[in-house]
């Protein structure tokens, strides 16, 4: 039997990026907030000091800060005819664990989705006619215009470094001319670029594209955010993605929110506490709180007036399924919602090998890059192309740590003398041009509970059924040659193209941009949450994170994740608290 604890106003399940956002706003509004976090406490001085943060083996290859698969993992298969097997060790994506979540070891590439991304179904149908059979793309139910102030605020909390391309409708030179209108310039100027970005920029311009500096959460200068917290200039150490920052130079919950939060008497955080289920009242009309387990295996019932799921899309979906909230998605009938529209990201690219010039890619940062958006979203005419959506194409200088990154030209074997010498000859001389493609929802890609494999508490693992769709493949086949063309214009000796081939492979790292499963929308028959990220079933349950995305756009998710969290918490404070109940009537 779970021990009963005293109640709080709000319980947050998970304390990463979204947990920190909800906690800050809700405590500021006077509520008593408790965050329950599965992993340990983590902060800069203790856990990623500059005396040991730069450890590639420990943090990436031995998963120093990620969730341990032994705790819980997902099972995976490409299609429902196969038997899903557990990901015994993480590969394609790396779920975070501990205070700060993945916000500790993200890159900080901080893009807004395009206005058309939020209305992907209605926009594309209006322009190109009905979506093909099986494509379950939907509108968000919230628009870019509504989210704009929240994008702006999240970017100020983070101190994002970039250049506006569209200020209140005016196109500004040097920025991204395709972006939605911004109410304000970025809080900080773009990072200083290196040789590879300079070459990319010139090559992209040459073929008539519009390069702009990637909006970065790695600081271009010292910055004080709206909560009074200070960030320091990035030192381009190159140990950014998959690592914590020892310099206070990367925006994370630790650097931008938590120190302010920890001073507030109405906030508490319990670490090493894994939430097992969301509890419902006897009549099933609301949640009463959550049950969690500590590291001794003892379980507790934590009552709360409001519960917010901030546990990352995969765990948010699993908790809803385990707690039997909302109708599970059934791919055969297409009915049900929880687990529906799981999407990912469609990556491909080209590597440039230089002869004389040195790219010195160890001088880098997680979000140091130049990009073009000419082929993203609906920024180009899709008539007759047979797909919707697109992606950005970027040249980042990041991750040039030698275990992870030692590219060799075409035809070099995988080991032995020839391999070793090719690694040596090219290590300081490569640049990469990547396509960051959208992933459109399809009826056959979804999440549910595995019938066989369980976690250490004996509860079913989440099962992922996913493969790249026809839309994904056509999109990638259309955009990869553009990346190749830019790469060929960068002045190297050789270009090796990495096409998107075959089925989705869960082994090589791609991105930790898992989306869907708890999608938002306009209709309880087709979505889990309403436009305020509130559960259609239990009005005092809110859901955060990229699980809300009905499909994934051609960008990294976190700016949109942050904006949605601020939008939702605003609705809680300004509307829900005055009149607790559904914020959208059905």
């Amino acid at each position, binding site marked *: 039997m779970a021990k009963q604890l005293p109640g709080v*106003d709000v319980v947050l399940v998970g304390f990463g990026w979204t947990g920190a956002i909800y906690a800050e706003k809700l405590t500021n509004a006077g509520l008593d907030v408790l965050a329950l976090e599965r992993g340990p406490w983590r*902060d800069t001085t203790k856990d990623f000091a500059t*005396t040991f943060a730069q450890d590639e083996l420990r943090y990436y290859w031995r998963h120093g800060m990620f969730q341990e698969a032994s705790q819980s993992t997902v099972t995976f298969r490409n299609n429902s005819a196969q038997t899903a097997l557990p990901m015994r060790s993480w590969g394609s994506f790396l779920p975070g664990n501990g205070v700060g979540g993945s916000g500790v070891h993200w890159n900080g590439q901080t893009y807004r989705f395009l206005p058309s991304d939020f209305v992907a179904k209605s926009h594309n149908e209006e322009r190109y006619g009905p979506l093909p059979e099986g494509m379950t793309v939907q509108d968000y139910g919230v628009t870019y215009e509504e989210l704009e102030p929240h994008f702006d605020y999240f970017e100020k909390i983070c101190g994002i470094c970039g250049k506006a391309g569209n200020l209140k409708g005016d196109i500004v030179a040097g920025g991204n001319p395709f972006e939605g209108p911004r109410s304000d310039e970025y809080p900080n100027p773009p990072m200083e670029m290196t040789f590879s970005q*300079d070459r990319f920029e010139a090559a992209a311009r040459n073929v008539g594209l519009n390069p702009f500096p990637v909006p970065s959460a790695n600081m271009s200068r010292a910055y004080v955010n709206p909560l009074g917290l200070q960030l320091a*200039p990035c030192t381009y150490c190159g140990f950014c993605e998959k690592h914590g920052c020892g*310099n206070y130079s990367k925006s994370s919950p630790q650097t931008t929110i*938590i*120190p302010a939060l920890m*001073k507030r008497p109405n906030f508490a955080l319990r670490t090493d506490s894994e939430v097992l289920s969301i509890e419902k009242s006897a009549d099933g009309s609301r949640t009463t709180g959550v049950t969690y387990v500590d590291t001794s295996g003892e379980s507790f019932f934590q009552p709360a007036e409001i519960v917010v799921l901030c546990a990352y899309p995969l765990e948010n979906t699993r908790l809803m399924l385990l707690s039997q909230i909302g109708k599970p998605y059934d791919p055969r009938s297409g009915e049900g919602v929880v687990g529906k529209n799981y999407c990912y990201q469609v990556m491909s690219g080209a590597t440039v090998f230089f002869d004389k010039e040195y790219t010195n890619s*160890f001088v880098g940062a997680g979000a140091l890059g130049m990009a073009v958006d000419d082929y993203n979203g609906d920024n180009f005419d899709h008539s007759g192309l047979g797909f919707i959506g697109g992606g950005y194409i970027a040249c980042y200088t990041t991750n040039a740590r030698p275990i992870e990154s030692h590219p060799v030209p075409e035809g070099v074997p995988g080991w032995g003398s020839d391999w070793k010498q090719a690694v040596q000859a090219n290590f300081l001389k490569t640049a990469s041009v990547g396509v960051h493609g959208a992933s459109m929802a399809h009826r056959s890609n979804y999440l549910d509970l595995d019938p066989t494999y369980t976690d250490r508490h004996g509860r079913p693992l989440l099962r992922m059924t996913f493969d790249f769709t026809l839309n994904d493949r056509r999109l990638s086949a259309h955009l990869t040659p553009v990346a190749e063309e830019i790469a060929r214009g960068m002045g190297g000796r050789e270009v090796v193209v990495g096409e998107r081939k075959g089925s989705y492979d869960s082994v090589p790292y791609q991105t930790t941009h898992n989306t869907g499963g708890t999608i938002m929308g306009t209709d309880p028959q087709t979505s889990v949450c309403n436009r305020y990220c509130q559960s259609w079933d239990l009005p005092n349950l809110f859901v955060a994170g990229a699980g809300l995305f009905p499909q994934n756009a051609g960008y990294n998710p976190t700016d949109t994740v942050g904006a949605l969290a601020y939008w939702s918490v605003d609705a809680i404070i300004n509307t829900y608290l005055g009149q607790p109940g559904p914020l959208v009537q059905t």
Partner: protein
Amino acid sequence: MFSPTRRKVLKALLFGGTAIAAPSALYAAEYGRGEGMPWSPFRGQPPYHGTLEASFFTPAERATVAAICARLIPNDDGPGATEADVVTFLDRQMAGFYGRGQHWYMQGPFLEGTATQGYQSEHPPAQLYRHALVALDVYCRNTYEAGFAELSEDRQDAVLKGLDEEEITFAKVSAKTFFDLILKNTIEGFFADPIYGGNRDMVAWRYIGFPGTRYDYRDFVGHDGARIQLEPVSLMGRSGWNSP
């Protein structure tokens, strides 16, 4: 903005010694409640370094593994796995949490999966090595009447190629899975920080021009394609820095 009355009520419930249980601090930690960022001395999480007592490989296994690594990353125009002491790295890895698969999900049933489903062996890395090394020895003795370590380099390469291209298979474990794993681990040992026993004296970093664990390149951002040459540094510093 805060509501002090409600706070007081809740605090009374939490700390007032009522019948309601509070979670034990031993098994979960509680932070916040206005106390600011927690801090206590000696709470850093530096990596362990020094020689591990434990060693996993038997002398014969160690000789075979060293010979495999030496062919995967040979000594030719520069140092290879032998000079980097990759076998010591592997021995320590296999003796530790990685070799035991301690952080991996190792519950059954174990089924053969598709390539896109990744590692599905019921053996954690260290056990896989052990079984595969026995099978490799049997294969080499049957085929060449000598252990792998005693074969000529050409023959060693042929055997490794056979494993890589799935022409040689083992009965009990997958030869290909073993090959892929030892190749991955050898590359890790060659390029990881010397703190883990391989990349001795940073030979691999020096060979490719990687300056290691430096933390500030702001002076070099504008290199404009010119080579940046810097002596590497490891988490242990570097030889010239250490006191005698």
